[in-house]
């Protein structure tokens, strides 16, 4: 039985403390379960790689969420044509019906409409809203994204408006469709 090094112990602790946050960030970027799992593993690998260089310049939560946001952006740029096709199809549905298919689907499947609405936001809004929903302050979000608090305030305001509109537009009228 090998004894765990302090680094391994720290890594496990980070994952167990922030695992749920990581899951939610992954879910807001990857709609398909297999993609979500890949993305989560990618987060974990990146945290493991970056951990030896982490000297406590920011809080551990900031460190973990920053890595997750960066890897999520990389995931979006690298994802395969299959997922992109699904998204293109979804965009086409939005354009022709004015409804967001992800939210309609989430309602049908009794999934989270909030998560589906967050997934439907543009990336810039999604980054801020997911961090805001995780309970981070504007200052902490600014630290995660490497930007100014003013910028975060503006983006958060727009993101919240967009989220509200998406959720209101898809309020069930006269029972579930």
């Amino acid at each position: 039985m090998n004894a765990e090094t302090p680094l391994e112990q720290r890594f496990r602790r980070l994952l167990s403390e922030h695992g749920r946050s990581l899951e939610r960030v992954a879910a807001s970027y990857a709609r398909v379960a297999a993609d979500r799992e890949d993305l989560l593993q990618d987060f974990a690998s990146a945290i493991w790689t970056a951990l030896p260089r982490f000297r406590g310049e920011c809080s551990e939560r900031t460190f973990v969420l920053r890595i997750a946001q960066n890897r999520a952006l990389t995931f979006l740029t690298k994802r395969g044509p299959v997922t992109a096709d699904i998204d293109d199809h979804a965009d086409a549905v939005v354009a022709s019906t004015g409804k967001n298919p992800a939210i309609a689907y989430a309602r049908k499947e009794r999934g989270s409409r909030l998560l589906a609405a967050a997934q439907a936001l543009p990336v810039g809004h999604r980054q801020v809203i997911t961090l805001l929903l995780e309970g981070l302050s504007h200052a902490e979000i600014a630290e995660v994204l490497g930007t100014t608090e003013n910028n975060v305030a503006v983006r958060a305001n727009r993101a919240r408006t967009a989220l509200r509109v998406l959720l209101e537009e898809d309020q069930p009228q006269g029972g579930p469709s």
Partner: protein
Amino acid sequence: MSGTKDSDDELARWREEWSSLGGASELAEELSRRVERDGKRLRWRVAREVLACLASTALSGWLLVQTRGDARTVVISAVVLVFNGVWITRLLTLHEGSLRVAAAGLDAFVELTRRRLADDLRWIAFGRRATEILVALVAPWSIWVLVSRWDRYRAEPWRAFVGFGVAIAIFAGVWTAARRRRARIERERARFEELVAGKTLS
């Protein structure tokens, strides 16, 4: 005031719903196991590449000593040493880049990702150029071999098919792989810029 309170209530409601999502208790264990496995695989891959470079360098040195500086061995060893140097530099550059990019802030991340993609494209361009130079050197030599051993190849054509066929297949494979990789990275770069533009405009 009331608007702010409504807005705060709304955010609190959203946060409550959000925090109820996710929550596989065995996630940390499972991820740790996978990272450990992936880490081992990655270390082995790097170790294999470094060992291959060291072995080919040692072999070149041994051949140089054995042949006492034969001209052909000198040329081949020089090519091997240059290739190994380039390969190790690439390995270290990419490793350093991936370490730096992981925990960077968003602006730094964007900058480092752009640099990584540009570096990748430069390496591919270098690889393609090196292949072209190699083809330019090997082609006349192959013709010379073919002409000088014409009778032998006529008697046993399979020798020509195997020898030249393998060489052509290797070059064609390298060329095609480089083209595909370039196309993939260019797609990735275009998509990344699209996302970054979305971020700036939002």
